[in-house]
């Protein structure tokens, strides 16, 4: 007899892997990492604005998932749970970074990433323009409070719906809309400022 849970597991292989890890068999954990690493690395990079920090953050996300495998509640997708862990980790990183900057241990420049276009063979004029847009966007995102930043990144760059963003952040859809609206107001103001 096929149960609902069985069907859900069949649709989400990561759920099966997590159940096995919780039981002490981590044989499939590498596959779970492989299936989710690209999305998590991208999310962390977009939230933190730094590929090296993103690598550490993604690694920490997987380690937390490994340690907490037994506490995973099989309600939603494992990928949503991983997104949540990654987002919370990155937001904590951002808070720590702000504290460090406030105390004066790190200069502001350290937060600003070097943004280089990946293909140097592209037209130099377009390349310059792209670099300018990326930098402007990065600066605008970096000025957003963590809550607004996470909503904007998840909706705009990860392509999540309001409902999915709400699930990841464990907030209501109304709160998602509200944060996104405020974020857009700030972004518009920053874009006007930059001309």
């Amino acid at each position, binding site marked *: 007899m096929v149960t609902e849970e069985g069907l859900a597991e069949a649709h989400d292989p990561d759920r099966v892997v997590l159940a096995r*890890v*919780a*039981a*002490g*068999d*981590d044989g499939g*954990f*590498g596959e779970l*990492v*492989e299936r989710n*690493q*690209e999305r998590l*690395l*991208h999310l962390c*990079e*977009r939230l933190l604005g730094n*590929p090296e920090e*993103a*690598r550490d953050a*993604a*690694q920490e996300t*997987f*380690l937390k998932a*490994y*340690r907490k*495998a*037994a506490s995973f509640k099989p309600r939603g997708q494992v990928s949503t749970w991983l997104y949540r862990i990654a987002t919370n980790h990155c937001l904590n990183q951002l808070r720590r970074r702000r504290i460090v900057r406030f105390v004066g241990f790190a200069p502001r420049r350290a937060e600003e990433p070097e*943004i*280089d*276009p*990946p293909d140097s063979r592209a037209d130099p004029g377009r390349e310059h323009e*792209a670099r300018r*847009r*990326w930098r402007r*966007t*990065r600066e*605008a*995102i970096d000025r957003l409070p963590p809550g607004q930043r996470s909503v*904007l990144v998840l*909706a*705009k*760059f990860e392509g999540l*719906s*309001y409902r999915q963003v709400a699930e990841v952040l464990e907030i209501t859809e109304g709160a998602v*809309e509200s944060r*996104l*609206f405020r974020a*857009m107001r700030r*972004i*518009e103001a920053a*874009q006007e400022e930059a001309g």
Partner: protein
Amino acid sequence: MEHTTDRQLMRLLHGELPGAEASELRRRLAGEPALAARLGELEAAWNGLELPPPAPVPVGFTGRVVARARRTPGAVKPRWAVAAVSLGLALGIGVGARLTTVLDPSGAATAWPGTTSGEIAAAGDDDLAPPASSLADEYWRAVDEVFGETEVRR
């Protein structure tokens, strides 16, 4: 622009406005140039958000994560291992408690192994009492039983 309308425009832009509301807003957009212009501004701001393509996944990332996970102190323990350790502990405690009772049925706190053989014998439990003769005597007795009295012994 009205705050509520601005929100509605944003939801329309993101495809999050329910069908009936979206149709109503589109009807208004067709007849209100200011509203259409505002939607254009929001769209430009939204589409103007661009970030560089993210860095590729580093080579060997999966292997490093798995290796670190296995080294991690909080790594999950197999349930059977947890159960076995718990059972062992429970058995150990049980045997210990039984031994204490057997060695000291009076209930007085006698510290084992401080208990002397005399006390054990006095307790009347022959299975736990040490043999009256020495190991050497036991050995020669066994040898005698098998081979008869040996010259070596004599």
